[in-house]
């Protein structure tokens, strides 16, 4: 029982950050038909930016030169995500990705892989290669006792962020003008263009929204991890697994996929630690073989 609770709690926190990254990836794929490998880098950039800002403003966990109250560090995490998402997102899309959006699926995939390689080194150039550990927001929340076992509170905050992000995304897609335009573009690019929708602009917005989500995932996991070069590499491949399991282009699918992968991995870590990675990719393979479009990505079903 205690073990099961641990699995559930660990799985939920793992699923939360997986969802933040995967939702952006799957949204961008749904709209632009581009599998964005550089999405992992946006996660990494968000994590670095957040850790760096927190360490700058609260060196050693104490208020620094600006003497800001430590509670503001949560706002700083959000700010870091927005800075990265809103600056790097449109930049990547406008300068590089927009040029290849009509060149099939393979070329954009490889282009974003090239961008991913570049951003890996850019992160090293900006923030060095030493790990950044900014655990102030994590340490401040302390721990809570559930059924006699202590759990850190911070992962629950991460879950909260993921839920809020999911709700916001749902509102944007289903209740806003931008969402309507996005759905039109997904349904038919050509007709949308003919109807006067500025498709490239929708692409830029959609890509930026996805970028913000990835950066959000990075910024809010930064306090839980040690931010080192290479964080992006692991995240993106996990996000691939999550999105394929849920169905590329389906945000609900990304949520279910993230939960499945999160809980499965947590269970494997607790019961068969040698197989913690294996189970994820075995599930990914199995789903691709049985339902290539994922659990929620039917051909006729409208994506998103």
């Amino acid at each position, binding site marked *: 029982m205690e073990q099961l609770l641990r699995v559930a709690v660990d799985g939920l926190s793992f699923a939360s950050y997986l969802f933040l990254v995967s939702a952006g990836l799957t949204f961008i794929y749904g709209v632009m038909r581009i599998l964005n490998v550089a999405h992992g880098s946006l996660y990494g950039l968000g994590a670095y930016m957040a850790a760096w800002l927190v360490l700058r403003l609260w060196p050693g966990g104490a208020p620094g030169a600006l003497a800001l109250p430590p509670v503001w560090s949560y706002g700083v995490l959000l700010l870091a995500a927005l800075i990265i998402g809103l600056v790097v997102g449109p930049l990547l899309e406008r300068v590089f990705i927009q040029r290849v959006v009509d060149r099939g*699926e393979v070329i954009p995939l490889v282009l974003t892989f090239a961008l991913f390689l570049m951003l890996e080194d850019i992160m090293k150039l900006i923030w060095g*290669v030493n790990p950044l550990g900014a655990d102030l927001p994590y340490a401040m929340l302390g721990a809570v006792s559930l059924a006699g076992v202590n759990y850190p509170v911070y992962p629950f905050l991460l879950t909260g962020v993921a839920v809020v992000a999911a709700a916001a995304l749902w509102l944007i897609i289903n209740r806003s003008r931008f969402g309507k335009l996005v759905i039109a573009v997904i349904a038919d690019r050509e007709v949308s263009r003919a109807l006067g929708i500025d498709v490239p602009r929708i692409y830029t917005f959609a890509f930026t929204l996805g970028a913000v989500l990835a950066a959000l995932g990075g910024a809010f996991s930064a306090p839980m991890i040690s931010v080192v070069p290479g964080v992006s590499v692991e995240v993106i491949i996990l996000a691939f697994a999550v999105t394929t399991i849920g169905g*590329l282009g389906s945000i609900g699918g990304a949520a279910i996929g993230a939960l499945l992968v999160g809980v499965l991995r947590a269970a494997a870590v607790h019961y068969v630690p040698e197989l913690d*990675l294996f189970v994820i990719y075995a599930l990914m393979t199995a789903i691709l073989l049985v339902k290539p*479009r994922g659990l929620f990505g039917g051909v006729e079903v409208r994506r998103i």
Partner: protein
Amino acid sequence: MTLEERSLAAPELAGRRLPRALGLLEASGAVRAAVAVLVVLALVAPLLPGWLLFLLTVAFAKGLVVLGVVLLLRGDLVSFGHGLFYAAGAYTVAFALRWGVPVRDAAPLVLLGTLVATVVAALVGLFIARYRGIFFGMLSTAFTMILYSLLLKLYWLTGGTDGLAARPAGILGLQPAADTLRLTQYYFVLVLTAAVTYGAYRLAASPLGYLMRAIYDNEVRVEYMGASVRQAIYRTYVISGALGGLGGALAAVAVGHVAPDLAYWTSSGEFVFVALFGGAGSVFAPLLGAVVFEFVRNYAFKLSPYTWQLLLGSVLVLVILFAPGGLWSLLERLAQRARGGKRS
């Protein structure tokens, strides 16, 4: 306007130009050049320093894997998972040596590695031949990540992140001393590379090669013609996997060590990278791409360990945006200009 011209003029194809003809006539200039390069590579080898021989040996081995990736790219299939075969070939050599197979010679071990990878490809191919586009790439990534997670975690079998040693006792009955080992390996890999490249060249000009080209253009029409798309893709996939295994086994022998990273998705990404960098315009392009890539990486890594990926990434972006045919297309253009110059 002929059909061919129209398909080239179509905007979605104009950017990703494929070779106009894979026939023998058109490419005979390239063949002559390749033979000349081969002779030069064989003659100058004894004069080259050890590190350069090693670099070329590894580049040829990886070039063979890239050749496999290119065979699939010609049918518009991107395998983001050739690390699977690369690692399968490499680990077969290491396992065979570790678990006391009586043969210690490199040649039969490389053959064994190739065979194992071929069997893996024949099995994986049964499933993957149904997939196209992004799903083909995703499934191939999933398979290679499965192998990676096993190589990484089954420590008692694979040595985990430490990997395994892969040092065969000799090559083709020869027991080269330490100072001639590099040279012997170089010749071994060079001969194999030349033979396999010739095979791939014939393959490109065979019905199967043309079918892949046709599948790139329009799969439905190929089916209407009465050819089996799935069978063509399956066969190409198995050949491609065999090349991956051969390259992996050769690389393992040259490096003397294998590690799980061979199967990680970034390793597969690198093969696709080199494939586009070299270009899909000729069977020689992957080798050219692999050699240039290894040189650039070697020097960039030495000069600036923190920016070499930045450099490689930028080069690839430039190639994709401005030279979609890769290095090979630039060479072709040069060659054309040279021919034109002579005539006028």
